[in-house]
């Protein structure tokens, strides 16, 4: 039995003056998929993430999530429905510690679960989670290997740790779809494979559907089950990595012919 469609983007267009950021985008995302979004800078990957998460509104087209039209909803409502994202430049609360950053996320979940009650307490169990904010935040730190940074202010944390924290915060809302915008950008070459491994292990455990923007084709081929290749606001390839990464257009516009020998022809890693 095939997985149900979770997200359906139909005929979406978005322009900024003379620049076309999204041109007739049509994508269906199935429940449980892990999709890599590739493309050169300005190809429309982040615009796609921004459109789905409500930061940008399309000029034309419809975005359906679980069959409901979310095209005109604000990002806050879209998050509450189950689509969350992380950011290319981590969006953290810089005057708070790592623990408090995650506590804010669970605090918002708790307020929402308690119908925004004025008397929601930090110690209250969050319905559906069975634990309180502190317990969940501590668990999240452990899950993402951040326990050592628990009480450090986030503004002093190294780039890789900030990325992990950003993703850990997004996971607090138990999203059905998680969109990761360049989870390894700004992270050293030595660190990024381990970070991606840890992120995927932590978020795929819950069966979360993942769409991640990535420039490193090795990481894409390691983790993606499907690849969406963007060029000039259009999707030029939508297939399994072995096929998409060897597509003539993808090789020409994104991967580059001279690098094609490094593009895998089959899944090399689990």
């Amino acid at each position, binding site marked *: 039995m095939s997985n149900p469609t979770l997200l359906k983007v139909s005929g979406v267009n978005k322009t900024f003056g003379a620049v076309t950021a999204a041109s007739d985008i049509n994508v269906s995302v199935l429940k449980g998929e892990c999709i890599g979004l590739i493309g050169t800078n300005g190809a429309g990957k982040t615009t796609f993430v921004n459109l789905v998460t409500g930061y940008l509104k399309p000029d034309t087209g419809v975005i359906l999530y679980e069959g409901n039209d979310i095209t005109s909803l604000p990002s806050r409502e879209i998050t509450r429905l189950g689509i969350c994202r992380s950011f290319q430049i981590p969006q953290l609360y810089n005057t708070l510690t790592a623990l408090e950053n995650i506590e804010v996320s669970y*605090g918002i979940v708790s*307020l929402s679960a308690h119908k925004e009650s004025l008397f929601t307490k*930090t110690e209250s169990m969050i319905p559906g989670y069975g634990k309180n*904010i502190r317990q969940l935040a501590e668990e999240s730190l452990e899950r993402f290997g951040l326990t050592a940074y628990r009480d450090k202010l986030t503004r002093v944390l190294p780039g890789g740790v900030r990325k992990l924290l950003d993703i850990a*915060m997004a996971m607090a809302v138990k999203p059905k779809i998680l969109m990761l915008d360049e989870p390894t950008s700004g992270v050293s070459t030595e660190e990024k494979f381990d970070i991606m491994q840890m992120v995927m292990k932590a978020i795929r455990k819950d069966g979360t559907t993942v769409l991640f923007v990535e420039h490193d084709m090795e990481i894409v081929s390691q983790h993606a089950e499907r690849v969406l290749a963007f060029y000039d606001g259009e999707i030029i390839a939508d297939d399994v990595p072995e096929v998409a990464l060897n597509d003539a257009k993808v090789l020409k516009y994104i991967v580059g012919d001279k690098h094609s020998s490094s593009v895998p022809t089959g899944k090399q890693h689990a």
Partner: protein
Amino acid sequence: MTQQISLKKLTLLALPLLVASPWMPQWMLFMVTIAMANGLVGLGLMLFLRAGLVSFGQALYFCVGAYTTGLISHFFKFNEVLILLLLSALASGVLAFALGFLLAKYRAIFFGLLSLAFSMILYGLLAKSEALGSTDGFNIPAVTLLGWLPPSDLVRVSILWVAFITVGICLIFINGLIRSPRGLLLTAIRDNEIRTEYMGGSARKTIHLIYVIAGVLAGLGGAIAAIAVGHIDPTMAFWTTSGEFIFITILGGIGSVLAPFLGALVFGVIHTLAFSNSPNTWQLLIGSTLIFVILLLPDGLWSLTSKFKRVK
């Protein structure tokens, strides 16, 4: 981060003052009562500062609270202090709820100036209103406490006690609020509002909520001040009054819910001393104090408590 206060600590702080109050000189009773009233407004401003906002018009709610008490006691001859306080809080809260729909959309200087504009509109209306005494205002008759009309030598003590109880209830409530997930959300909004929205949190609703709470606190402060002074006039809504509340909040800091009250007490002392020693240039001393605090104690006087703890 904010120091938390327990009910025990609060009682330990308030009890000596309450016990000593019958032996305090009248001027001191008055000064402490006014400091409690100003501190309540500062408590609301502290919530704004935690969310990265400054209101230059909190005198609006201070004045609405004062005039609600004044109008009811003066024109309707109803003088029960607890009911007057409740009605003043209600009037300020309702106005803050209505204006909050607009104010909660704005941030930074726009929030500050819009709040200032509303307070100045009220000032203008009251100053032109001859039925309410125009710029002279009007006097407020003595109030009763649960039906008891205190004799003249006990008036100031009884008002101070009412102020203390009101402040105590507000402190417990605000302390709980700051410790709750919503309290942490205020700092989150200040640090990164976009991220907060992306987590499903509503910055606008949160700011609207604290706007109403701050309005209620200022209304209570205005009512207490009106009862203590026995007279109200439109300067209670004037921008310089709002400035004094900001001064008090910066002076105390936002490190604890007690900080605005410390700020208000110190402001009261400086104001009294400066005014009695130099009636024509007292603002000079107030201004110098503010410069001193901003340069040397940017986190306010309350930050001294943590410094003392570290030294110990």
